[in-house]
């Protein structure tokens, strides 16, 4: 491995490379040029004065936020000779599993395509384009016949793949029963235990104020809430991404959350963002993609049937259809173990120059995908802003929930962590469930794949996602899953089948997530 100094230089070089030529770069340059007219800029101390000006006018902060954002989406630094696929995913067996899973998905998509005689993409005739433009704000009123289309895969299909993952270098045949793992995931990844998490999540401890706990009705607001809101306003006025991220660990007040999240994600909704979104919209109007049908179907099946999110149906189309066409999303594949599916121009299979990524953003939606967007509709109602925030959330977090990788925030680690926590701290429950054929992961998996969207009530979900953003990790999702089992342990001990276990855990809409997480992390006897 490289030494720290080299690592740092390499990181800096990479960030400079990425920010060079961006709009922010040209804006700062312009600002620097224009400020030369100002009286306080003196020739003798030119460099310092310009720097000082940029700092005072808030441009340095903007640059800081942009750098901070780049740090989030940079692949981890590695040896210059590392092949790119190793950067995406260091473990060979994971790479292989992901590749074969992708093959399966693509095969499924292609066969549906052939079966139904629907092209992967087609240009819309002018009349259709006009119609769609008129109906852009109410695409939900369309009722296309989607009965022949099936989702390409559902979370439970993906679960089967994860269960079958094995590290060929790991010999698990001689495990003594006390050390063996009872769960479905059988890969030896490093996951944190409660003592380690107590340190990492210190802001969630019992003596620290939280939104979701200390803002409840019986607690006087002066104890925590009022001060926390005051600090939140200050963070927003400072416009500092890193501060906002730290702040979010204790929860974001409802009235400030939208601004805080966009600050953390550095989604500024500049004119360029709006332009970009409108270009994507134009792409939707001009071409019809097969995945559009999948998106329609998914929205109709999930979000439209949800008591909280049915209202936002139209927004979901406006975001997801554009998302499919956004080639900027392809950037995240440099640190995502997944690889975008390629399609070849007819007759030129295998020839790279005739390869086209399909869909253009490289992400094939699965059943429940629209639920990643739905909660965000609560915070943002301008489509371009909503889009920008969703896209950033996707390329930072959500992609990890449906790709096979060794990342600590990846779904494999989350599943493993969930099972280990359960086995360590609720062994009786785990054993019982296992005996009756109700492996806990089979119930919890669907929660984690969606980061609990659609299972919790909206306000609770947003409190959970505050912490995902605040700690820059999805680990808390696994902790919550285990905490839910702990909470309903008594009832679960009585069940005698997987179906009844599912029934006990079917309705999470009344759960308060922060007390559950706090108790699980800080009040569990180790």
């Amino acid at each position, binding site marked *: 491995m490289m030494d720290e100094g080299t690592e740092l230089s390499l990181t800096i070089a990479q960030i400079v490379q990425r920010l060079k030529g961006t709009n922010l770069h040209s804006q700062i340059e312009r600002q620097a040029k224009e400020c030369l007219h100002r009286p306080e800029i003196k020739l003798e101390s030119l460099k310092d004065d310009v720097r000082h000006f940029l700092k005072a006018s808030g441009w340095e902060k903007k640059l800081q936020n942009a750098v901070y954002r780049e740090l989030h989406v940079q692949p981890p630094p590695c040896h210059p000779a590392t092949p790119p696929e190793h950067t995406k995913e260091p473990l060979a067996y994971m790479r292989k599993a992901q590749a074969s899973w992708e093959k399966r998905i693509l095969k499924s998509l292609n066969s549906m395509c052939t079966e139904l005689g629907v092209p992967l993409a087609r240009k819309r005739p002018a009349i259709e384009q006009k119609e769609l433009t008129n109906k852009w*704000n*109410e695409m*939900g*009123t369309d*009722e296309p016949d989607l009965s022949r289309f099936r989702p390409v895969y559902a979370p439970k299909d993906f679960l089967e793949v994860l269960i079958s993952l094995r590290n060929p270098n790991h010999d698990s045949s001689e495990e003594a029963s006390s050390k063996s793992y009872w769960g479905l995931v059988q890969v030896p990844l490093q996951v944190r235990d409660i003592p380690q998490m107590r340190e990492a999540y210190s802001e969630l401890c019992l003596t620290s104020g939280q939104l979701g706990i200390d803002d*409840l*009705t*019986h607690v*006087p607001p*002066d104890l925590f809430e009022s001060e926390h809101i005051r600090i939140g306003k200050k963070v927003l006025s400072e416009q500092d991404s890193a501060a906002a991220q730290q702040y979010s660990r204790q929860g974001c*007040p*409802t*009235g*400030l*959350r*939208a601004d805080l999240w966009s600050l953390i994600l550095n989604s500024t909704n500049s004119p360029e963002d709006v332009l970009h979104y409108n270009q994507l919209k134009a792409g939707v109007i001009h071409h019809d993609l097969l995945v559009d049908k999948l998106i329609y179907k998914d929205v109709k099946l999930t979000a*439209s*049937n949800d*008591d*909280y999110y*049915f*209202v*936002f*149906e*139209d*927004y979901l189309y406006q975001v997801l259809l554009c998302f499919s066409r956004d080639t900027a999303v392809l950037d995240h594949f440099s640190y995502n173990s997944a690889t975008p599916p390629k399609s070849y121009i007819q007759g030129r299979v295998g020839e790279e120059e005739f390869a086209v990524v399909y869909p253009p953003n490289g992400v094939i939606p699965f059943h429940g995908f629209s639920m990643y967007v739905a909660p965000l*509709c*609560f*915070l943002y*109602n301008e489509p371009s802003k909503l889009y920008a925030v969703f896209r950033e959330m996707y390329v930072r977090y959500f992609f990890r929930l449906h790709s096979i990788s060794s990342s600590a925030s990846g779904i494999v680690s989350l599943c493993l962590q969930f099972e280990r926590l359960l086995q360590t701290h609720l062994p009786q429950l785990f054993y019982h469930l296992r005996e009756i054929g109700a492996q806990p992961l089979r119930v919890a998996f669907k929660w984690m794949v969606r980061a609990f969207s659609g299972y919790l009530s*909206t*306000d609770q979900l947003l409190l959970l996602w505050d912490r995902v953003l605040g700690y820059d990790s999805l680990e808390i999702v696994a902790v919550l899953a285990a905490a839910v089992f702990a909470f309903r342990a008594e009832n679960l001990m009585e069940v005698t089948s997987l179906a009844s276990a599912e029934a006990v855990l079917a309705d999470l809409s009344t759960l308060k997530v922060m007390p559950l997480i706090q108790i699980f992390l800080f009040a569990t006897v180790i």
Partner: protein
Amino acid sequence: MLPRNMAKNKTSVGYKGPYGYQKRRDGEGRSCVRYKCGLTNTIQDVLRQRPGWIEVKDDGEWDFNWCDVGWLRENFDHSYMEEHVRISHFRNHYELTRKNLMVKNLKRYRKTLEREAGRIEAAKCDFFPRTFELPSEYHLFVEEFKRSPGSTWIMKPVARSQGKGIFLFRKLKDITDWKKDGSRSEEQRDETQVESYVAQRYIENPYLISGRKFDLRVYVLVTSYIPLRTWLYRDGFARFSSTRFSLNSIDDHYVHLTNVAVQKTAPDYDPEKGCKWQMQQLRRYLTARHGTKTVEALFKDIDNIFVRSLQSVQKVIINDKHCFELYGYDILLDQDLKPWLIEVNASPSLTASSQEDYEMKCHLLEDTLHIVDMEGRLIGKEKRVGGYDLMWNDGPVYRDVDLETLGSSCLSANTHLGCVNDRKKQLCQLLKPIPGQKRI
């Protein structure tokens, strides 16, 4: 029909009626309540499950009557009610709930307010759109109509409910039937007796969520008009139209009318699909979009609608101490987050559209009965009972302020519409269980 109540014996302590109960003196509350119920929905369940409450059939004597307005009209005037008896409507509630009378009362109240307290105070009554009764105010209406060319108006029958008979119009020729024409002969007028309608300025810029229009249903309980004593329930809901709002299709009822009853007949209505949001959900959404301060101001304006509308009929409603009434207020928000009063219902629907809705309505009715307090468990100084907050008690009611914050914060109203409703806990602390009742 001679009402039984009049014919019965004079009571004395220790009288044992036909059902073998012990009747208590007034003010001591009763452990057994005989109730009559004219409706067959959620209220039936709530009454039946209340410990110590027994249903009386047919002409039996009752202590409590949850009646429908038809029964009220036919029987109220002939019923003698003892002091402890309670009935769920005020005799002339229609002064508030019939659209033409409400408007008349509000206009008159506003005039009085302007005369006595000035324009600014009177402007606080500007929460109902310009409304005219037709055909009686036809000419006044035409004047207003011509003053705002191109505007849209909505015609509503005065006495019908559930969205029946309502339509929108932009041209006078659409409403010639309601033209008040002195040239028509007596015969002509008798033959074609036109139903009384109100023409109201249609709110063309409603607040939309994801392109959809919605209105709010809020529950307000009045236990007395003089002095005015009223409670506001924390729960309620926002009812969404199932299609996207557009001014192009004024004939499309489904777009403009948000009553659940109308939505249920819309072609793409899916009963599985919720078209309601709980009030808490709406409040959170608005707070996330507009910030806490704006939303608090909005809800304060909504409180103002309740109080002013009730004050406007204070002097006309026959204030019978036996009466209480649970009103369903329909409120519409416009794009500037100004709330408008659409209608007040004296018999808000108690039929449940889902399990969640059923539970909410059960809790609403249970808490209503707690406040009516046949059991005599309240001391009369409560500011909160379950999900109800005391909104007006012959004057504004403020939240309890503890001494530490007394200096820093100004007084805030005691209402919590759309806020957390932890009624169970509050009731546990407030009420002693009725004998025979499991813990609440």
